[in-house]
């Protein structure tokens, strides 16, 4: 089921065009990674999805139609900057934020207890928010995003200020929500997290979509004629198909000649009796693709 449908939206602030002809969809049970450099137009796009800004042109459909007040209870939002009341207790803050999402008090109490336990915040329930660490506040913010079990969740840098243990907790939560059928849009600068969690990515730069699609497909699209090899001994010289070899930290990187087949190279190495620990066709990381696209070497979707 299509939860978000964005068609050709544009948005300008004065003379600056923040978003320029962006279109995409998000299905239920899917995590879409919204990535791009600072000022690319990610936050503006998110704010248009949430009806905070109206697009100058184009259309946004959320949960089957234009965003309106009745749908706000079915959407969860985690902004990049923490947005919690500082001078009240954690419990009061979370209960209030749940109440304006239309949650009945009894259900809030039940879920809040579970979430606080899950995120190791039970003992801080009565503490003032301002007395909590940044990581704890981030976890509290995540609770407010998910407590009403929304059908669409938009998270902006969900792992910021979290240690590896808490990062894992949030990843697990995101996966659970995806399995429950929630549509998730995750805006992040952390490419490894996007790579690990997202089903598809949308790379935006200067308000335009530069790249979109499933991660595997994108990586194949950007694959280079290189092989990563880990072996007990250096590779012999003059292997047909290999142009040259560079020794890196833990492996050797073999650059193939144009048109050379990695399979043929593998066969040749085995025939020469080299014992291999690893043989991998080098696919670029999302980080590398990001840099390549943003610095002008990529293709537009």
């Amino acid at each position, binding site marked *: 089921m299509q939860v978000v449908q964005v068609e050709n939206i544009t948005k*300008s*602030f004065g003379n600056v065009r923040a978003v320029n002809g962006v279109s995409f969809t998000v299905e239920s049970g899917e995590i879409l990674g919204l990535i791009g450099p600072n000022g690319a137009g990610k936050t503006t796009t998110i*704010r248009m999805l*949430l009806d*905070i*800004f*109206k697009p*100058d042109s184009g259309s946004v459909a959320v949960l089957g139609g234009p965003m309106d*007040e009745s749908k*706000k*209870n079915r*959407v969860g*939002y985690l*902004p990049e*900057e*923490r*947005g*919690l*009341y*500082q001078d*009240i207790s954690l419990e009061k803050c979370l209960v*209030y*934020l749940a*109440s*304006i*999402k239309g949650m009945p008090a009894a259900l809030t109490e039940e879920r809040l207890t579970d979430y606080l336990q899950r995120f190791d915040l039970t003992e801080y329930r009565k503490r003032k928010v301002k007395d909590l660490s940044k990581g704890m506040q981030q976890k509290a*913010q995540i609770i*407010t995003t998910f407590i009403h079990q929304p059908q669409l969740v938009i998270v902006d840098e969900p792992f910021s200020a979290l240690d590896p243990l808490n990062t894992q907790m949030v990843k697990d939560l995101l996966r659970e929500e995806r399995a429950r059928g929630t549509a998730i849009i995750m805006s992040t600068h952390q490419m490894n997290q996007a790579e690990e969690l997202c089903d598809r990515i949308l790379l935006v730069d200067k308000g335009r979509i530069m790249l979109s699609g499933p991660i595997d497909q994108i990586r194949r699209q950007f694959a280079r004629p290189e092989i990563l090899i880990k072996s007990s001994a250096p590779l012999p010289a003059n292997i047909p198909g290999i142009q040259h070899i560079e020794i890196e930290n833990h492996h050797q990187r073999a650059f193939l000649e144009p048109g050379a087949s990695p399979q043929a190279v593998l066969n040749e190495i085995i025939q020469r009796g080299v014992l291999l620990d690893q043989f991998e066709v080098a696919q670029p990381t999302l980080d590398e693709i990001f840099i390549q696209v943003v610095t002008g070497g990529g293709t537009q979707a």
Partner: protein
Amino acid sequence: MKKIWLIFKYEYVRRVKTRGFIFAVLSMPLLVVLAMVMAVISVSLQTSKLPAGYVDLSGNFANASTQAAAANLIGDIDLITFSDVSAGQDALAEEQIQALFVIQPDYMQTGAIIAYANERPGDNAYERIQDFLQSNLLAGEDAQVRERITRGSNITVRSLDGSRQASMRDWFVVLYPFLTGLIFIIVINISGGYLLQSVVDEKENRTMEVIITSVSPEQLMTGKILGNLSVGLTQLLIWLLFAAIGLAGMQMIYRANFVPSLTPDQIALFVGLILPGFILIAALMTLVGVSVTDMREAQQVSLLFTLPMVAPYWFAGALLQHPNHPLSVIMSLFPLTAVVSMPMRISIASVPLWQILSAYVLTWVSALAALKLAARGFRRGMLQYQHRIRLNEILKGKTHE
């Protein structure tokens, strides 16, 4: 409506539960009680329980009654007759009396009395001798005449066209317009301060961005205005409750009518001016709150309309001396000054009906326009963290909405 209620409740409860609010609520009645206690102590220090004495050299009070005609509010004392001055002076020297009043032979022509005292006599001694003289001089008169001369006249001021009148004794009618203005200033300062703080805080700590994904900016703004306005009104109501209890207590003790009742004119003044005045200032406070980047700047900018609000008090002399001067008329029509100026004028002059109605209409129109502007400014400025939003940006801000 439910979400407005939730925001209203949250804003209201968080404020009234603070120590600052509780202290502010209790401080005024405590100050009043303290002032009253101090006054009682001060009066008791200035009065003596010793009797007063008199010697009548005029012969007009030979068989006079020394029984007090009316109860003295600051303590009854006896009045003792002495046959001659030296006997009275002896009693004074032995501190049997606090003062000796010698009624001079030509008293009926000159009113001359000489008072002897070791130290300044208490006010009750003076009141006691005055009461004695008055009641005995009037002893032969009809009871109604005595009552009238003792209690004085009740003057009612009435305008030529009969549109307004006020009795000098009906203190509430005279004071109501001043009180409404004063109450307005107090409540709007309390509520406006809270409202400004609330909006700026939410913008600064980024909570606003989370809240508006749950409610509309208009719902958020309405809930905040109503919640914080109610905080100020609660404070006022508690003060008025204390005042009413105090007045009721005075009524019981002195058997006089101190508890006022509201007339339709006074209610019209509240609905026509005070209510829209609250809305106007609250909307402007909200607008300032979302337009600036921090609380300090918010307080500075808000002076632009809180100063005009109190300006009528600076010009109170001119307003009261010349209530129909063009400056007075302008101030009572201009929405930011009308709330205080118009009641002032009404209290002392006959204000044409068209001017009163114009003030009502102008204040209501301004209040509704300010609300609309605040709603637009709220949408425009709520997520602008780095720079202040200018008025022309709000007015032309459609592209950002």
